[in-house]
């Protein structure tokens, strides 16, 4: 679920990569993926190997993708929604079942991830995992050290404890503007079921968030990447991959900003970006070939090495850079993995309660 800064998307959202092949074949696959989410040489290699031309488009929010899919006739053959969006889209009849006989590489997939994605896509009939990550705490190591006297954050307590967050208020706290990612974290911190849809539990989460609301500078789902990288803020609830991007940008900028990412010990929510084929896709056979190619261990490892996310492909792990594979914030250890949770998508009625609660937390109205 990487959400790039709007600035980047403004300049590159409609960037389309055309790869020219020597053959005059008409085979083509239209791929719609998150921006900055693949090593482009993978696309070139795919075209060289199969002769299928890839028209690669990018988006920067699930909502944009969903609107295109629900309106129908998007013309895309492979799209990569996040799992909680995918689940609703499957119900709406947006996708077609994958013909597994055309996907021999599916045996490379990692059962730990497949088991969890099955919660969104029962039997993994419609989708294959591309990348996954967690919702955790990104922080400015030096500023947190100065404010709290420790350079390591390992608990949701740093955020949900008003006394602690008050100390971070002045250096800046951002939170994802995404109730489905933050309300479950509040429930988890309170020792409740993060999947709870009971109005009582939701109002308890609301109470916990309202207590820390005065110390939150902004709710936004992409601005925190730049804000962390520039040293404008010291703490953010964010998606793992986004925080790694902030860390890399900070390193490139050489302004002395160091960014850390923590998967809180109480447990964190997992997110999954899933490759799927729309029901009205014009080039199904080519789409299946593309998805199968992306499940080749060397290929998906190359992608992970480039975007720095964990993938759901077990066989690829021997080809993933050691630094990435052994980084517990990318590939959490077994102990932490056990505590990671997933949240089932909300039914429309609960979604309305959640959105309304969220508006109250964010705007006070």
């Amino acid at each position, binding site marked *: 679920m990487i959400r790039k800064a709007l600035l980047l998307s*403004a300049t590159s959202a409609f960037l389309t990569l055309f790869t020219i092949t020597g053959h005059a074949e008409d085979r083509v696959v239209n791929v719609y993926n998150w921006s900055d989410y693949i090593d482009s040489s993978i696309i070139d290699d795919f075209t060289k190997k199969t002769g299928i031309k890839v028209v690669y488009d990018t988006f920067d929010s699930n909502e944009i993708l969903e609107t295109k899919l629900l309106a*129908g006739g998007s013309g895309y053959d492979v799209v990569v929604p996040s799992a909680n969006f995918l689940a609703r889209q499957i119900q709406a009849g947006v996708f077609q079942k994958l013909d597994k006989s055309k996907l021999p590489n599916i045996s490379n997939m990692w059962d730990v991830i497949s088991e969890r994605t099955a919660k969104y896509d029962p039997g993994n009939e419609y989708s294959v995992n591309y990348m996954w990550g967690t919702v955790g705490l990104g922080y400015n190591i030096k500023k947190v050290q100065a404010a709290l006297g420790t350079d390591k954050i390992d608990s949701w307590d740093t955020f949900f404890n008003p006394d602690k967050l008050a100390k971070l208020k002045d250096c800046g706290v951002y939170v994802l503007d995404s109730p489905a990612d933050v309300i479950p974290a509040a429930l988890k911190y309170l020792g409740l079921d993060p999947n709870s849809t009971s109005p009582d539990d939701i109002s308890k989460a609301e109470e916990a968030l309202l207590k820390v609301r005065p110390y939150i500078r902004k709710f936004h789902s992409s601005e925190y990447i730049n804000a962390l990288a520039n040293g404008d803020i010291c703490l953010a609830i964010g998606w793992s991959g986004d925080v790694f991007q902030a860390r890399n940008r900070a390193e490139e900028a050489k302004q002395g900003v160091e960014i850390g990412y923590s998967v809180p010990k109480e447990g964190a929510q997992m997110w999954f970006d899933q490759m799927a084929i729309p029901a009205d896709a014009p080039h199904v056979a080519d789409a299946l070939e593309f998805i199968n190619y992306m499940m080749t261990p060397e290929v998906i490892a190359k992608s992970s090495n480039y975007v720095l996310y964990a993938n759901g492909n077990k066989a690829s792990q021997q080809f993933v850079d050691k630094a990435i594979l052994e980084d517990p914030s990318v590939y959490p250890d077994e102990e932490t993995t056990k505590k990671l949770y997933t949240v089932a998508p909300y039914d429309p009625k609960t979604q309305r309660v959640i959105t309304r609660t969220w508006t109250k937390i964010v705007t006070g109205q």
Partner: protein
Amino acid sequence: MTNIAAAAAPSTIATAATPLTRLAKGFVNRLVIIIPYLWLLFFFLVPFIIVFKISLSQTAIAMPPYTPVLDFSDGVSGFFAGFRDLNFDNYTWLTQDALYFNAYVTSLIIAGISTILTLIVGYPIAYGMARAPAAIRPTLLMLVILPFWTSFLIRVYAWIGILKPEGLLNQVLLATGLISQPLVILNTYTAIFIGIVYSYLPFMVLPLYSSLEKMDYSLVEAAQDLGCPQTSAFWKITFPLSLPGVVAGCLLVFIPAVGEFVIPDLLGGSQTLMIGKTLWNEFFSNRDWPVSSAVAVILLLVLTIPIMFFQQAQAKAQEQGK
């Protein structure tokens, strides 16, 4: 638009010679009038009817995500049977939660204040341009239009860099010793006003400039010759004569500012509740296309009122012109 049509009518008829050419010219003449109406029909009325129809539907987990979908898949009778499922429930829903009302009011207030600020900033600019030597006016006009050549989004992003606590503005103010603590501007209402005034300034300056430039400056000179002080000459002559430009400029700023989404999202604080964000939430978070359509229809109605005022003002100005 009505002016163009009215101006086109007499000139074509006057030159008609034979009955045949008269007929042909009459057709061309009518076509000229019809084109703006066709344009309105396809780009305003049809989309509006679609949005209005969706606002009467119910949300569903389907493609598209509402029901009923009026199409001819069940024949003509199926198309008309769908009408029975349309109702005004979504509009009732909007009245039941104060959220929507508050969002409309906040949006109107923010847009209103921004419009006044833009007028205060824009008027002197337009006045200066209109009074400048004729030779440099095209250059000045160019300078007003120039920012449009850069993406709007990037320009709003640039303001983050200027307004943030460690930003350009605070660094300059701290360095000059005017302030000892950085000012908190970003993520406040002030930042939204700055963003809107900056972004919409050309829309205010251009109509103001065009009405000020047309003005006969000898009227002001005559007033001064008769002993009228400069300031009262401005308020008694220049300002009233530029009123059509003021009204046009204010509407061009006010109307888009009410529905503004990007500027409050990037520069404003999260506590800002504007109708653009409310609509976004309904559409994207709740995936409720019908309710968001209802919000949009009401917004359109709210905005029609100032446009009606404008047309009245314009009609009045035309009468005075005669």
